[in-house]
């Protein structure tokens, strides 16, 4: 399952600079809004689902090498967060759906 398919199926909004998402295949996912838990539990190339939308999300994602973050419940990151994400190569996607729904659908799609 490529990131492009995930974006299309879940109707996610791309916040960072668009790129060839069909070349990216996330492996598994992690869901938490507690940053230290993500630091401990997420794996490189995971999709991270969270409703946090601030600068430290980018720091955690980049240090943990999680390249894709899905920000849920319509939380909107500030412009400088998106700029930093672009600099650090972190892809930010957003949706108005709640985390529970997004995680469930990702699981159904085989992102396990």
């Amino acid at each position: 399952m490529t990131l492009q398919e995930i974006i299309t199926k879940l109707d996610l909004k791309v916040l960072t600079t668009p790129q060839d998402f069909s070349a990216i295949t996330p492996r598994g996912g992690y869901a938490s809004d507690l940053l230290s838990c993500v630091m401990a539990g997420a794996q490189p190339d995971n999709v991270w689902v969270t409703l946090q939308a601030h600068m430290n999300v980018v720091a955690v994602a980049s240090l943990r090498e999680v390249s894709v973050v899905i920000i849920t419940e319509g939380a909107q990151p500030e412009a400088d967060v998106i700029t930093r994400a672009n600099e650090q190569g972190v892809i930010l996607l957003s949706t108005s759906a709640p985390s529970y729904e997004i995680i469930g659908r990702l699981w159904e799609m085989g992102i396990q």
Partner: protein
Amino acid sequence: MSSTLQETQGRKGRPITDNDAQDITRIEELSYDLRIFEVMSREVFTLAPNQTIRDGLELLRIKRISGAPVVENGDLVGVISTEDLMRALTQNDLKSPIRTYMSANVISVKSYEPVVKALETFARTNVGRLPVTNEHDQLVGMITKGDITRGVLVAIRKDYQEEEIRRYRVRHLFEDITSDRTSLILRYHIKPRDFINGGQASSHIKRAMLRLGASAQLARQCGIAVYEAEMNLIIHTTNGGILRVQIEPHRILMQTTDDGPGIPDVNKALQPGWSTAPQEARNMGFGAGMGLVNIKSCVDKMEIFSGAGKGTRLMMEIHLRPEEKFSAAEGTEEPGI
């Protein structure tokens, strides 16, 4: 040409970032950075306005070109193309001066303009080669799309070479320096409540480790440990503190120091889930009480020196496995930071 090119890249000399390979943007950037004089060809075959059509045909045939600028006293006064010469031929007018058939309305570009200007002109006018003049309208060269492609390629290769040399130098830092004990110290001042910059120091440290040739695994371990320590300075201290990383051939020492408020019960702080993070930090997802636990799992040794009303010193150490060691000249060893 090559000397001017070097000057430019020396001046720009931007390193290629980790997220490089975005060559498209780099090429776009180069078309603004590079000046026309840096990529144009300086060897230009010109004609004078009073030379004959026959001379013109001769030149184009010998040099295998499809047109030539017409120059009088160094000034660009026109261009003559194969089509212009054809017109003269059909009139059987081989002896006429070039001036009669040339077009005096010359599209040209300035040598000091960015390459993108030439690209725009090519697109707008559909011509394949453009005369280049200097600030005094004197002809100094010609530019084609091929010249631009070549110039951009040279510039990109130069970027990569510089980056490679830089990486090479850093990677062999420990080998090249002989001392009894070589270490590299990175120091960062972390400000309290500076959430916006939280994690920046850790990113820099991780990147420095990678540049020094550390494995991805080792860089990640260090990155996580210093990130948690950095955030604790931001969240829990009164005045922020110092994050210090000491890289040695066989180990990494990481340390934070601050001047308060201190940890009354260190054992409690070490328990998973224990946190005194304020609401502001909790709203952002801090305060799981997992930071110190994370650090412990990333390092070989962790020590906290603190107490109520005192400063806190957190010391972390990673011993490098033999295959991870930064190669270094032999030296004696002494313990401690």
